[in-house]
């Protein structure tokens, strides 16, 4: 069925986005009318992108109107495609703009996941500078931050963003929708090299495996070396009870996290700052994750104005065993990093363990010992990670091994 299709945003306050209307016609070719804020500098480029997108989609006869407020190519293409499809047209193929830097970033199991910054999938203006704030990961969200009528448009936007936006080395994650729609989301995002799939409201290991299977199939078809890893989100009582099975459902699972708004609603409790009502659930997530050998990550801190509260929440989360926290605002990122940074004590201990480990290796000893204590392999591994993080944060000078018995150099952010 064909009708007038509209997508995007309109109005004076719109930034880095556009509005597209497609009215199917029976003849006369494609009539494109563009008003753009960047007429002098990029007017021709805007028109060219619209035409390219319409041609690829196979649109033959339509009146297309575009009101642009500085949308980049990947946004224009996504909005035009969404409007075309809403108009019941577009049986052709999608026009995918050239890939940007970071498109071919490898999928890596072991990396810092202290902060992950949520970006609502239908708001392109937040994508552009997200990487500059230095989060370990960014999450292009297709689920709860996108209104249901916009989920189709968000999917195209997120697909294009994964392909084109430079996120400055942050891990590229997508939170897919629940159910069947979520599996269809994978069709769009996996071929663009998404690195982690966040699966919302997981209650069974089967759910994880279904996502895994589909992702692997898509990755293979796209010729990718490695399918994305998975991060299930526990958001209900049942999810808590199934957590150990969910965490170990597949080797593709690298982390487990929790969503407290839905969880507290599920158990019929009010969510409080103190968090007593969710203490058990969070402990379950930590334990289930560790038992399965994956990383436990804590939920978001919703009060963006309360930086001290955020810091306290991070310290508490770290105390419980979490290794990271979700962020809903870029200014939360540095605080999360500071709070999850190893303390001077931890760095000192780790330093000594690593030295002992390296000494034992050199002497080809089977056992690592520090003073009279034996150090088990998991402890060594953790110490190596701590030292690596401390070096990356500038809390440990690069040449620290040479001054083996000297004090830890603390530089930090001061």
């Amino acid at each position: 069925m064909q009708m007038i299709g509209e997508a995007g945003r309109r109005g004076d306050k719109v930034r880095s986005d556009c509005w597209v209307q497609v009215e199917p016609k029976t003849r006369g070719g494609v009539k494109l009318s563009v008003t753009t804020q960047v007429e002098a500098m990029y007017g021709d480029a805007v028109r060219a992108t619209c035409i390219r997108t319409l041609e690829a989609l196979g649109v033959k006869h339509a009146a297309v109107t575009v009101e642009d407020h500085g949308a980049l190519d990947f946004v224009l293409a996504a909005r035009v495609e969404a409007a075309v499809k809403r108009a019941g047209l577009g049986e052709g193929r999608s026009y995918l703009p050239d890939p940007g830097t970071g498109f071919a970033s490898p999928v890596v199991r072991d990396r810092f996941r202290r902060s992950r910054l949520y970006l609502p999938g239908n708001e392109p203006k937040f994508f552009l500078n997200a990487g500059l704030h230095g989060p370990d990961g960014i999450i292009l969200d297709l689920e709860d931050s996108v209104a249901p009528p916009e989920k189709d448009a968000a999917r195209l936007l997120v697909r294009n963003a994964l392909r084109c936006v430079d996120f400055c080395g942050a891990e590229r994650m997508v939170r897919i929708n629940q159910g069947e729609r979520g599996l269809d989301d994978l069709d769009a995002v996996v071929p663009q090299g998404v690195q982690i799939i966040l699966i919302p409201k997981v209650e069974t290991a089967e759910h994880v495996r279904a996502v895994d299977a589909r992702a692997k199939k898509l990755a293979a078809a796209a010729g990718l070396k490695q399918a994305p890893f998975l991060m299930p989100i526990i958001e209900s009582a049942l999810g808590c009870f199934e957590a150990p099975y969910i965490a170990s459902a597949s080797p593709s699972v690298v982390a487990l996290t929790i969503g407290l708004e839905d969880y507290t609603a599920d158990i019929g409790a009010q969510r409080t700052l103190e968090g007593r009502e969710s203490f058990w659930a969070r402990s379950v997530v930590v334990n289930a994750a560790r038992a399965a050998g994956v990383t436990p990550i804590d939920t978001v801190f919703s009060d963006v104005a309360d930086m001290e509260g955020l810091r306290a929440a991070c310290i508490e989360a770290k105390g419980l065993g979490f290794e990271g926290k979700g962020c809903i605002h870029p200014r939360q990122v540095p605080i999360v990093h500071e709070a999850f940074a190893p303390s001077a004590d931890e760095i000192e201990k780790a330093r000594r363990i690593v030295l002992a480990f390296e000494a034992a290796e050199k002497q080809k000893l089977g056992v690592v010992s520090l003073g009279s204590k034996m150090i088990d392999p998991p402890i060594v591994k953790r110490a190596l990670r701590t030292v690596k993080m401390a070096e990356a944060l500038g809390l440990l000078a690069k040449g620290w091994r040479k001054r083996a018995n000297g004090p830890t150099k603390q530089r930090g952010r001061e």
Partner: protein
Amino acid sequence: MARMRLDLKRNQLGRLVPAVVNGKRQVPYKGVDEFVATGRQAAPPIACAANFPGNGDKRVKSLAEALERCGLADGMTLSTHHHFRNGDLVGNLLLDTAAKMGRRDLMWFPSASFPCHEPVIGHMEKGVVHHIEGSMNGPLGDYCTDGKMRGLGVLRSHGGRWQAIQDGEVHVDIAVIAAPCADPFGDANGVDGPAACGSLNFALADSLYADKVIVVTDHLVPFPAIPWQIQGNHVDAVVVVDMVGDPSKIVSGTTEVTKSPDRLLLAELVARFVRDAGIMRDGFSFQAGAGGTALAFAIYLKEMMKKARVKARFIRGGSTKHLVEMLDEGLTDYILDGQTFDLDGVASMRDNPRHVATSPFTSYNYHGKGFFGSMVDVVVLGATEVDVNFNANVVTHSDGRLLHGIGGWQNCLFSGCTILAVPAVRDRIPVIVDEVTTLTGPGELIDVVITERGIAINPRRLDLLDAVKGKDLPVRDIGDIQREVYHMCGGAPIPPRRGGEVVAAVKWVDGTVIDSVWKVART
């Protein structure tokens, strides 16, 4: 509107500028410190106390009567100040009154104009106002950019406006000074009264050099009105009205810091640069405006100063509550204040002797024996565009349309370290370009361009390049940042078309013409 083809000359920066502006011959920009003016200052006619009431009561019943007494005639130049920003009522009152009196072809010479002055367009259409020399933004800016004004617009810095009056380039026939507080003799200040705004120093030159001066107030006090920021001895008449300005639009109750994460990131980076380049040290000085990024910068710097136990000798404002806190907390010896933005600033200026009002003469006048702007160690400014040679634009958008005035921007470029804190791209508009649309400040005075994507240091500043070695700062080549943004935007932008009809001239601090603003066809 048909206009005579102007004779254009190419100046030292390669820009085409008019040889004559509104009937006055111009000197094209010659370079920084290259043009040294000669001659004597202008002066008003000698006055005589015999013509003024011995009891010191210069009140007249209405502004119309005052203008009548001052001999308002067609073709005169009338000036007003902008301390009330978008809350000004006197600018419109003046021109409305002149219109009612049947006057025509007047030149309006505000120290700056605001969207509230949109009614002046009506006066221009009717021929009451011939043209405006002063900043124009919003609807007035559009009117000028569209080529509808009969004369050429002239954009000057705060210092440049003082220089123009002082040197006789602009002859003010009647200055109308809106005063939050005044006495019947004509002494006036901005620290008392419902429309309190801080100082009145944007009107100082007008009070000293204009042929006639009228003070308009809504808060009359018996003589003396202390502090006398404007001296009654220069004033011809005093008019009392109901309201000189809308207090809610003059100063904000309190200045809020920006919440934009990108601006905060940029501000923090600027503060880190100032600290790590060694500019922040005991006894240093800095200037920051009240704009989003500049204010946030001051707050980050404040924390760094506290941590390092560093005290500034003076801070130049735009003063706000945040600057006042720094003074109160002993982080600076003085605030030297050109313009006050909130109630805390006003109160501090009134009550704290270390919060000192400065004028465009002391802060910015290039035709004097030095000025404060060149004595500041570091200043953080904005810009609409910068080019790869560090030349910058503040008066137009990249579409060539008049955006806002120069303010103290050109004058501040003479500081020890001039930093432009700008986003690298604004909604697909690259900020770093090959050539700026309108050249407002020369690259040789712009030392650092800091964006959220990196810090570009002018290759002339070997000392700064040296100072940042080994510090954890994202220093990059300016062309590098430009290319990154061009790539993001899908390629290099089509360069701006210049040429056609000149609608305004942009003056440099020494009165030479640094660039033209061209008519822009409406799409």
